[in-house]
């Protein structure tokens, strides 16, 4: 096993204050399962899950309560045992409305996992293990939530030569992955080995930022006896080093083509938490029903890293951490760069929620937006080599086809442009607006049947 420094430079990064010191040293605490959980049907990329239980049904811990809603979708399992109280409209952490299955906890923790664990996974066919990952409802837990069983099953034409494990956690304030690497390195390492077996032996690169020396030591110790195909890569601390495409650039020097996927360049990136979830599913037979969430911010009385069941509400976690010091301020799901501001604390924790950030009014700056002064700072800061200033001006002027030409669909919404903008423009919102409008235009073009075909 080698320990390396990242061989390549990544363009366009920023160095915000990380504020990780508050929770980086606090061990993970387990939230006692709340009385009510609301399991969201949309907590991943792709089609929402379809409930298979009805009001009044009794369910057990780990029981399948919703199946995948399409080829790119994931199943969902109950984190508690109890009775289904309702299947109702709720809100996802992204702010979009979604169906939720509300379950009343009976406190008995009756197990009901449908998974058949395979502790001797090295003798299993990859397809069996992929089926197990699918049955466990595992999705990318780094934030994007792409269904893992689809990701680790690329088409045969796309050979994966390197599996990159994302332990970077570049988002400020968040320390969930950091604590996971310190406290459960064996689980992560076995999950990595299972994935390597499924992908038929690619190189392994575990990437960790150098602001986490204790996590690096913990993982190094556990991986010490690994062969030379495996390397632990220490990344320079910068935002957004942990973004998929930036990791591939820093570790392998390859650029994912515009509109393409990492598998196009022979790479695959998985978060450390996802690896731990794969271990729990394959070896222990537990589906994905809980995750570590960093609850922090100036308003939280006792910031902590909380192991919470999926479906616990933000208010449950905040209460566990001593509650908020005052009302008002900003409640964010995720981190300050890529997180989504919440309307209230009733949002349920989904599989991709890595942090709850409660910032006081003084900590939140509300800026007046000014016109773009074409200073170019955003161009220098953009890790995807886009022109954020031009895109934002085009979006403001309503020229959405122009934004497509400027490759707005490649934007990873990292927020570097908004961070550096001296005119305090809501850059990420402009990018999202451009993307939303382009998708609406594409949908309209598909639906519209012009009465007579026009000549080009």
């Amino acid at each position, binding site marked *: 096993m080698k320990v390396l420094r990242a061989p390549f430079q990544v363009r366009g990064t920023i160095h915000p204050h990380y504020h990780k010191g508050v929770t980086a040293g606090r061990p993970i605490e387990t939230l006692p399962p709340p009385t009510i959980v609301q399991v969201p049907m949309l907590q991943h990329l792709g089609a929402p899950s379809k409930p298979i239980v009805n009001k009044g049904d009794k369910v057990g811990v780990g029981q399948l309560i919703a199946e995948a809603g399409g080829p790119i979708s994931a199943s969902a399992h109950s984190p508690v045992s109890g009775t289904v109280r309702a299947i109702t409209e709720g809100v996802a952490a992204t702010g979009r409305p979604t169906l939720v299955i509300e379950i009343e906890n009976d406190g008995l923790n009756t197990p009901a996992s449908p998974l058949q664990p395979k502790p001797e996974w090295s003798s299993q066919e990859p397809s069996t293990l992929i089926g197990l990952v699918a049955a466990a409802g595992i999705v990318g837990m780094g934030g994007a939530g792409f269904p893992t069983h689809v990701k680790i099953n690329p088409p045969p034409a796309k050979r994966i030569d390197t599996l990159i494990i994302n332990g970077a956690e570049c988002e400020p304030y968040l320390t969930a992955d950091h604590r996971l690497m310190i406290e459960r390195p064996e689980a992560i390492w076995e999950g990595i080995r299972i994935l390597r077996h499924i992908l038929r032996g690619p190189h392994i690169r575990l990437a960790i930022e150098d602001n986490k020396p204790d996590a690096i030591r913990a993982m190094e110790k556990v991986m010490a006896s690994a062969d030379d195909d495996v390397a632990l890569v220490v990344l320079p601390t910068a935002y957004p080093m942990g973004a998929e495409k930036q990791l591939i650039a820093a570790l392998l020097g390859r650029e994912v083509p515009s509109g393409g996927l990492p598998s196009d360049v022979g790479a695959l990136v998985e978060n450390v938490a996802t690896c731990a979830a794969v271990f729990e599913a394959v070896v222990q037979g537990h589906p994905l029903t809980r995750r570590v969430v960093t609850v922090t911010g100036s308003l939280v009385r006792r910031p902590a890293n909380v192991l919470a069941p999926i479906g616990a509400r933000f208010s449950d976690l905040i209460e566990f951490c001593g509650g908020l010091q005052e009302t008002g301020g900003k409640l964010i799901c995720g981190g300050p760069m890529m997180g989504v501001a919440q309307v209230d604390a009733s949002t349920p924790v989904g599989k991709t929620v890595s942090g709850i950030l409660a910032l006081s009014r003084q900590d939140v700056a509300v800026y007046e937006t000014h*016109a773009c002064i074409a200073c170019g700072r955003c161009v220098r800061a953009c890790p995807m080599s886009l022109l954020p200033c031009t895109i934002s*001006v*085009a979006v*403001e*002027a309503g*020229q959405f086809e122009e934004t497509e030409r400027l490759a707005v669909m490649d934007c990873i919404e990292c927020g570097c442009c908004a961070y550096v903008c001296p005119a305090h423009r809501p850059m990420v919102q402009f990018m999202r607006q451009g993307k939303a409008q382009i998708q609406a235009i594409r949908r309209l073009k598909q639906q519209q049947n012009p009465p007579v075909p026009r000549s080009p």
Partner: protein
Amino acid sequence: MSGTILLIVSAVLVNNFVLNRFLGICPFLGVSKRLSTALGMSGAVVFVMTLASAVTWPLYHRLLKPLGVEYLQTILFILIIATLVQFVELVLRKYVPVLYRALGIFLPLITTNCAVLGVAVLNIRSHLPFLHSVLFGFGGAVGFGLALVLFAGIREKLERANPPKCFEGTALALVTAGLLSLAFMGFANLVKGA
């Protein structure tokens, strides 16, 4: 040879027809809203101005001068230019209808465009030999095209800007044209004696 290059450079940059001589402002403002139409218009003007120079020179020196009717140059040149432009219009309508429709009214306006008549008259006034006249016409048109394309690029970006209401549209365009003209004055001493 160097004299010829200097002549063209002078026509394109130093004494740019639009930005230094202030000829041809009408299509300059009218067609410069989109880069694609600006390029099309430039092509049409290059054709008309070069050909106009080539046709008017022999007509003046071999027809008007020997017959002693030099004073007819204005009306004769207008006639030739009008015919040329009509010809270009017919060709465009048949072979490039999209450009024809995009240019619209500005295509026949090349006829009354003082830049075209100007280049013909300037050739005579400067007593240039034939080849130099044609090159001067060509250079002048290229300069016109350069100014037009530059201006169109700037105007496309101005579309996204958010100026005060009183400046919107032509007002801001004219201010920009003035600034562009000032910028081109920087070429003033590029060619000595030009």
